């Protein structure tokens, strides 16, 4: 028998809409379990949102967990838990990125921003994939990551990205074309 957290993670959006009240009533232990179950996926998505900078990704994930566990962000059951969580991660990462830029601008370290390279191993098995992804426009990178890495549908990816389905589909097709060309 599945736990409440597992049911919430696994439930498709239409089921989630029907059982929205049950999902919202998730207590802290249930929420913690749901987050734990999605932790690795969340970390992967945070990495992608932070241009594969591991320390920034971890920081963003910590902020997101704090937001959720302290009740600042509440799941209302309008989409699947995973889609909602990914949208929160994406927004938090964007917010943190803006703050970081402002912080650095105030300290007049603009050249360092321009020179900033993602930390971490670039000589790994998928270095070429990472390099190709980095060169993609943000929307294309996001949609490809969500579909191929996190196994979301384009509809779900559109929800996470906060764009229309048509727009997400266009980014998806263009992104795939670019990747094919770069990885050839």
């Amino acid at each position, binding site marked *: 028998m599945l736990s409440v957290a597992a049911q919430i993670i696994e439930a498709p959006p239409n089921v989630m809409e029907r059982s929205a009240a049950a999902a919202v009533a998730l207590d802290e232990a249930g929420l913690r379990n749901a987050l734990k179950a999605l932790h690795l996926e969340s970390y992967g998505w945070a990495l992608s949102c932070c241009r594969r900078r591991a320390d920034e990704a971890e920081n963003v994930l910590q902020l997101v967990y*704090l937001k959720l566990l302290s009740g600042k962000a509440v799941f209302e059951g309008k989409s699947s838990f995973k889609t909602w969580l990914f949208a929160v991660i994406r927004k938090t990462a964007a917010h943190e990125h803006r703050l970081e830029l402002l912080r650095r601008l105030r300290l007049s370290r603009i050249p360092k921003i321009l020179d900033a390279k993602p930390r971490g191993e670039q000589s790994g098995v*998928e270095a070429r994939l990472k390099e190709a992804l980095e060169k993609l426009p943000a929307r294309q990178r996001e949609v490809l990551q969500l579909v191929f890495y996190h196994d979301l549908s384009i509809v779900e990816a559109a929800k996470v990205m906060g764009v229309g389905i048509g727009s997400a589909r266009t980014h998806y097709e263009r992104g795939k074309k670019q990747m094919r060309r770069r990885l050839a």
Partner: protein
Amino acid sequence: MMNDDSELRARFANLREEDRSAAPPFGRTAAAKAASSRRASFVRIALAALAVLAIAVISVLRTHRATDTAAGELAAWSSPTAFLLETPGHQFLDQTPRLGEPLMHALPAAQDGPQ
């Protein structure tokens, strides 16, 4: 097309495995910010209290100063028609007459006129 998708999917799957091996444990991620958040919220509350206190002190000082100024202004105010109240010979009414002293003494020199 299908082939491309499956190739991309395989590459992303490898990347996912690589990321998973480097992911921090859930416990560390979930617990790390809680402590700093408590500290940050304490600092935030202290700053807010300090700001409220500063505002209160400033407003009290301002009110006090404004009351003083208003009282001073009121005391210094005189009506534009106040000169009409200065009737000729008002000096006689302002002073108590003394025995042995002529009342004319109270008059200013200008009013003494030619002797």
